[in-house]
């Protein structure tokens, strides 16, 4: 269709969803006239007006809480949380209200709310601006949690998330906002399907969001050394596409999960457990995890040493191959 940046693809996806359904409302801090601090909503305010692209008060719980009220009235709000670390003031509205209201009402009430969260590090930001909090939300039944890694997915997944009648936490890897790639006219995958980006017979890297690019680079480096390393883009964190994960794990026998969040109680632990439970006899090595240390995100001057990079992935692959 066209070459776009990841941020531009989300913008185009929002625009397409708003054109298709006038119940879609974009709301958040500075999303209107400014177009968002990352300019992801650029131009929408001008074209759809202040009633559908709403500059809200600076109140995250209010953003999600009022989005719930709008959804109860039949709207399909798309909230932007300005940075990953700012979602915590809205935590109760997300996990106690947004996630559970359908179950609390016995299935009578649906809340088609999307919460967009720029996520992860690597942009030299100050504290609270580089967090990976997917495990909090994946742990909560009632939410769907997805993470795009490239412009094509960004364009289609945001529209699929808005079309879902369930609440969706939509993670956008902020350090990939400016990556460019071709965007197709039609989606290649369902919202919750994992994508096998690269087949591999020796080992499988499972990544999502910002670490997918790193995983692909590591796989390419491994190939130069004569190893066939596959890459699976998780895309959906809840639900997990266990069919694809089990198939790839069984085929290669070795799995390394990578994410930016701390490995302790992170989504990698869930994936490792799920694969081990069902593919134990196909595995040649324990499922390994590469992620952040269990410390708060460090100052930007040392984040290059903190984030999983190609070398750390290759070390884990090597450890798996030599188990």
């Amino acid at each position, binding site marked *: 269709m066209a070459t776009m940046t990841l941020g531009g693809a989300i913008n185009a996806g929002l625009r397409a969803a708003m054109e298709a359904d006038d119940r879609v409302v974009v709301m958040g801090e500075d999303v209107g006239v400014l177009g968002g601090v990352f300019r992801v909503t650029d131009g929408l305010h001008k074209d759809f007006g202040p*009633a559908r692209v709403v500059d*809200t*008060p600076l*109140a995250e*719980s*209010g953003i*999600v*809480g*009022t*989005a*719930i*009220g*709008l*959804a*109860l*009235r*039949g*709207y399909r*709000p798309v909230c932007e949380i300005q940075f990953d670390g700012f979602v915590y*003031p809205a935590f*109760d*509205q997300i996990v*106690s*209200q947004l996630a559970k*209201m*359908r*179950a*609390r*009402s*016995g*299935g*009578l*009430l*649906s809340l*088609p709310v999307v919460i967009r969260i720029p996520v992860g590090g690597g942009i030299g930001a100050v504290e609270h601006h580089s967090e990976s909090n997917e495990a909090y939300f994946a742990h909560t*039944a*009632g939410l*769907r949690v997805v993470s795009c890694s490239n412009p094509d997915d960004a364009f289609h997944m945001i529209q699929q998330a808005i079309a*879902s*009648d*369930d609440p969706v936490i939509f993670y956008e890897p902020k350090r990939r906002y400016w990556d460019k790639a071709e965007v197709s006219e039609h989606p290649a995958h369902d919202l*919750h399907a994992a994508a096998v980006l690269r087949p591999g017979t020796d080992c499988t890297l499972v990544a999502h969001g910002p670490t997918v690019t790193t995983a692909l680079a590591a796989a390419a480096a491994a190939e130069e050394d004569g190893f066939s390393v596959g890459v699976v883009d998780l895309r959906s964190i*809840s*639900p*997990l*596409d*266990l*069919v694809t994960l089990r198939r790839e794990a069984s085929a290669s026998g070795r799995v390394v999960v990578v994410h930016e969040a701390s490995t302790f109680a992170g989504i990698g632990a869930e994936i490792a457990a799920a694969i081990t439970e069902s593919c134990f006899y196909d595995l040649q090595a324990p499922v390994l995890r590469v992620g952040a240390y269990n410390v708060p995100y460090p100052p930007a001057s040392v984040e290059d040493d903190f984030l999983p990079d190609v070398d750390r992935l290759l070390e884990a692959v090597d450890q798996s191959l030599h188990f």
Partner: protein
Amino acid sequence: MSSAVNEHVQDLASLRQGQPMFQLIGPDGTLTDAGASIGVSVELAQELHRDMVLARRLDQEALALQRQGELSLWLMSWGQEAAQVGSVRALRPTDMVFPSYREHAAALCRGISPADLMRQWKGAAHSGWNPAESRFHIYSLVLGTQTLHATGYAAGAAMEGSDEVVATYFGDGAASQGDVNEALNWAAAGSLPVLFFCQNNQWAISTPTATQMRTPLHVRAAGFGLDAFHVDGNDVMAVHAITSLAAERIRDGGGPALVEAQTYRFGGHSSSDDPQRYRSADDVAAWQLRDPLVRSEAFLRSSGVDEAYFTDLAEEAGDFAASVRTACRSITGAALESVFDAVYAEPHPGMTAERAAHLAHAASYGSEN
């Protein structure tokens, strides 16, 4: 220097003063000056008195049922009948209401049945009624969260050019929550049609109002830019009049308003609470002199309402009480698999797998037996 500046600024203490409490009928059932001046409809008072009598009877029966082990928990609205009945009856049936969790009197006025109200407190479900039919949202147990839902709902109403009022109930304790303050600010900034109705029942479980706030709530609302009203929450006619006025102003595009109704929770916070540990008998006795039902009955009797009205109402309340007991015993919980079915609107493989695992486990027990 400071003293010189002080001469040029307002008296700050005066900004924290509250309005006098609006009242039409005094505790002894006689009309106040305002009541005599404005006039009080005896016919409406009879209707509202009936609502309150039935609501209190529900409370009495439900509490007894809890003591008998038929309900897991009950949160009494005993004492707050006037605040709830007077306010919800002042709204149009089409106006959406977002309650907290003890708005049983208001819920009954919206046609919600005792069984549907008790289902949650028997542990059979997390809610018991369809909000779309009753225009009464399910209860919110996390304090104050519903005020933001009401605000968002009102934003939708405003976008559509509707003249609906969206009402939300919360308590004095919930007013300390960030969500309530975000909602007050948000609604005021957007001039949204929200009626914030605070039942100040003086206690947040064991915490008195004086520990919650320094400034009266209706004064705080003015700081956010809302119209605010202060009413005797045990005077059902005053609550009805003030809520009617506030709703009319909202409907006419005047923006949100807050009503602070001074009332008192005669019971504990819940059936598990022991209010004797934190409040004195004198305090309770003083408020019992302001009992909303005693007051409305005194007013009706002094207004010449026929004894037959009271006899018929007592008989109706007796029948209602029997129906409450029958309804409670008829409540049954759904099977666990129905919970899996209600979590997501669309299929979710993880949920589907866990549901299947549960059913397989349950079936394996069945086969052994």
